[in-house]
């Protein structure tokens, strides 16, 4: 039921206009028209227009800020927006550097949103929890520090499910973010604010975090590109921990190139994170070959495995047909398609919820009202603890702390935590085997498109089941890219569908290459939501 062609909002075809890669070095190529049907890199566009002096960083910042102000009352993607003068001051500094022909960072003038569970020293960082209300950390997360060093301007902190525990942003301690494609629907989660903000162009790119799919599922729901890097690729220092062995900082953008450029900026070993990898970082930008330079079968010989267990009952038939069309498209690009079976696939979900809850029950022990955050006055210690936590945590968080505490308790550890770890090993083995046979594996990013706000709020199990496509990837620590591949009509709304590509550990390069070619050759779709309007 692919009906997007009939939707006039999605038909803004004009001449194909690509930004050649070289624009990173040169500023002579003309700026593409903004309504290019193929997703264009916001980052490269901004860079080009700055270097060509066509516009200024201040102008760009003002455009984003005014769109943010216009759309934010409906969307509520931000928990905190940087004061305008603070943003403009940073933009002015960039303009000054351009004036003086000083060197510019790769993200100069790029407005970035940062998920509120990533620490910023100049803005509150609540992780969406009342227990951290008004808490401003004394330090920047390494990823934020790197964004700033690369010239990005942090425009604000995006909404999320409390501590990343949720798939809709409904579990935020503060507000529910709306989906830019249909305001009555959820943007996905937990990085719902980051995905909605990029989708509605409130900022050019954003950082999210992905513990069980929290970057990829909202990317799918909001029609943006979401990249979950390999575990250890990006430092977790300053990421408010949910489940330490699964948490990854990811990138969201409106094109594959944008997520790759942001990943380039934030990757690398960090002496403050013992689990960050010393693996070398390739130049991801070299994968973003302009469409005009591609031959007719640019992905010839590439082996793509379709995960059979992701196209079964329980998955929206429209999502399945979108995926099947993506498979055909990949075939057209020269890929060899085969089917891969994961007997352990369905075990991943319960294993994930046991491990993530167990780790979170431990990670959240520090919110005791003693040193920071919400403190309830009490006469004795146990009441101070109990009341501060009872008042500060939301119900989803309490649920997971209880589950995790139970799973780690004496007498239950072997039955739950230990077995879940065994499943994890099994999942890792299955992926390793499948990725020896295939270069990438593909699946839908989520079993459905964005659902209505409130629809699954009281049915946690149904909501957890929505993570089936993504959690296995976290258990295996692998990189995965989600990019929009089609639309599904739901009543009066047209909602984007996301395609997930899973790669071998530390091979984000292949994912970016394939994703970029897929995106640049996909005909007939524009993933700009109606809310953004014509000023984009």
């Amino acid at each position, binding site marked *: 039921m692919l009906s997007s062609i009939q939707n006039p909002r999605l038909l803004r075809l004009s001449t194909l206009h690509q930004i050649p890669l070289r624009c990173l070095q040169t500023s002579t190529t003309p700026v593409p028209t903004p309504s290019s049907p193929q997703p264009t890199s916001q980052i490269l566009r901004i860079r080009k227009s700055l270097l060509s002096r066509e516009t200024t960083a201040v102008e760009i910042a003002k455009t984003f800020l005014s769109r943010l102000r216009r759309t934010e009352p409906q969307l509520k993607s931000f928990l905190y927006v940087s004061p305008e003068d603070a943003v403009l001051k940073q933009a002015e500094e960039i303009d000054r550097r351009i004036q003086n022909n000083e060197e510019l960072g790769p993200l100069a003038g790029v407005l970035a949103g940062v998920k509120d569970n*990533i*620490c910023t020293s100049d803005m509150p*960082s609540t*992780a969406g929890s009342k227990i*951290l209300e008004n*808490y401003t*950390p*004394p*330090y920047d*997360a390494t990823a934020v520090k790197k964004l700033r060093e690369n010239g990005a301007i942090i425009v604000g902190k995006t909404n999320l499910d409390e501590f990343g525990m949720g798939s809709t942003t409904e579990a935020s301690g503060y507000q529910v973010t709306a989906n830019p494609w249909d305001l009555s629907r959820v943007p996905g989660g937990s990085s719902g604010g980051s995905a909605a903000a990029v989708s509605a162009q409130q900022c050019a790119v954003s950082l999210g975090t992905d513990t069980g799919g929290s970057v990829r599922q909202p990317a799918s729901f909001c029609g943006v590109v979401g990249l979950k890097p390999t575990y250890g690729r990006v430092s*977790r*220092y*300053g*990421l*408010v*921990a949910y*489940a*330490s*062995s699964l948490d990854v900082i990811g990138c969201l953008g409106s094109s594959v190139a944008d997520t790759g450029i942001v990943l380039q900026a934030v990757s690398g070993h960090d*002496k*403050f*994170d*013992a*689990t960050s990898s010393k693996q070398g970082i390739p130049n991801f930008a070299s994968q973003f070959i302009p469409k005009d330079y591609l031959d007719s079968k640019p992905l010839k010989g590439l082996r793509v495995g379709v995960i059979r267990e992701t196209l079964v009952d329980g998955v929206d038939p429209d999502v399945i047909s979108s995926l099947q069309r993506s498979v055909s498209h990949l075939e057209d690009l020269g890929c060899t398609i085969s089917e891969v079976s994961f007997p352990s696939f369905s075990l991943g979900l319960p294993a994930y919820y046991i491990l993530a809850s*167990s*780790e979170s*029950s*431990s990670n*959240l*022990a*520090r919110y*005791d009202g*003693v*040193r*920071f955050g919400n403190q309830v006055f009490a006469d004795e*210690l146990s009441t101070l*603890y109990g009341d501060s936590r009872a008042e500060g945590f939301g119900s989803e968080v309490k649920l997971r702390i209880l589950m995790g*505490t139970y799973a*780690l*308790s*004496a007498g239950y*550890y072997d039955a739950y*935590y230990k077995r879940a770890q065994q499943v994890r090993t099994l999942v890792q083995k299955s992926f390793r085997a499948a990725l020896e046979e295939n270069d990438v594996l593909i699946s839908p990013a989520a079993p459905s498109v964005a659902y209505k706000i409130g629809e699954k709020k009281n049915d946690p199990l149904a909501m957890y089941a929505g993570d089936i496509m993504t959690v296995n990837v976290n258990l295996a620590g692998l990189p995965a890219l989600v990019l929009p591949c089609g639309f599904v009509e739901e009543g009066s709304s047209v909602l984007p569908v996301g395609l997930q590509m899973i790669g071998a550990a530390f091979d984000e390069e292949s994912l970016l290459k394939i994703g970029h070619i897929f995106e640049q050759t996909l005909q007939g779709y524009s993933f700009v939501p109606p809310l953004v309007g014509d000023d984009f």
Partner: protein
Amino acid sequence: MALTFFRGIKTCPLVHYPSAYFARKNGFFYCTMGSTQTQFATQEKQQSGDSKVVPKTYRKSPDKLLKDYEAIIGIETHVQLNTSTKAFCGCPYSYGAQPNTSICPVCMGLPGALPVLNSKVVEYAVKLGLALNCKLSMDSKFDRKQYFYPDLPKGYQISQFDVPIASGGYVDVDLPVEFGGGHRKFGITRVHMEEDAGKLLHTGTGNYSQVDLNRAGVPLLEIVSEPDMRTGIEAAEYAAELQRLVRYLGVSNGNMQEGSLRCDVNISIRPIGQQEFGTKVEIKNLNSFSSVSRAIDFEISRQVQLHSQGQADQIVQETRLWEEGAQKTITMRKKEGLSDYRYFPEPDLPGVTLTEEYLDGIRSSLPELPEIKRRRYENMGLSMQDVLFLANDINVAEFFDATIASAADIKLAANWIMGDIAAYMKNEKLSISEIKLTPLELGELIASIKGGTISGKIGKEILFELMAKGGTVQGLIKEKDLVQIVDRSEIEKMVDKVLAGNPEQLKQYRGGKTKLQGYFAGQVMKSSKGKANPKLLNQILLEKLNTET
């Protein structure tokens, strides 16, 4: 600043390792228990004995009573490592610093902060593991031990649970001669790495408490012994040997008052011959070796009294505090079953992998350990008293070794160090590295006396000068013109002079009052300003006294 350190919930890995207590069958040794605390035992017995129907054993004297029982003692020791920074962050630690002046996001447990292991902690753990003859785990890991307490910022302590870095070792101990001496071997169950917690500061009014996190995250090694000790003295000596070891290795200052070395004792008693163990009691707040010894002896008496009066059920599993003032243990808290610390592997830290090369490197850097040193000294022919004294402090031992390396007489070197030098250090409150005397000069001094260049008396004088001001033996001898007179004719002249100057005494001597020899000798020595060789002097004096001219 009145500091009360009181951690409500405390490490007790033995609880998780009940097998540790059963790993060894009978202990190695049966010792007569010390009876230094029998007074207290007697008092308690009298108090509680009045209203009870007491069994026959009551009639036995306390000493006899104790002989029917044996105590099973195990010790958990926490050693604070003297690394320049904390275990998982770059903060330094110095004891007694202003509260919360040495903290960062990591050791405060702020959201988003992550631990990164200080490699020195592993190095020190391996050193101690090797020194305790342990088997090292080539692959160990960290775990989280979870409990809530305000001095524990993260809500969990990073520790090691099921795979400690070192396990299955032993330590050799020589008991002090004054306690009967003897050699003992005590098993080491395990050594693991963990982080310390902060401290609570209780205000004078008692209305609220404050948290000082300076100590939070400071690296500790926890050493768990096998339940191999039987007396307070054995336990105290075990602890003292650990202190010697960590000081020899340079991994900790081992200071018990500052809490750099903390001992928690587990103790139970059983009638001799009984196979199963009695109920175990834990004792805390032991701030010196003597309190370890006295607390155990008290506790043994207490438990034996209860047991012998048919009140064994009143020995309950609990934690007791040693009260230094009252010289007794009191209940701190009763155990309500086992605490569930919900251990699980620390996901923020990769596993700790050791290589053979790494171990070899550390092995070859180890100093000569106390036990080996003691055996070497013993083989040199030194008495056990001397051996224990010299090997007790690595600096003293090194001083001694350096002295005898310059071919000085072993026994003389030991005597000088244990006698005048030790006394001087004690009076001046100096350590051996702080006195100005060098081992080389001590060797020179000994050689000068032995060779007859100076007398022993003058040697002593020079020694004090050397310790206080430094300098060389040769220089001082020259400077003060202290060379012993060994020239026979010179001494003869002096003797003649003295004899000539004391005709009355000479007459008395020759009349039979031979005691006066001492008087003459003194006079001659005086006239030589102490430099005359005493042996020669006496020889000449006797000759002259007994030869009538």
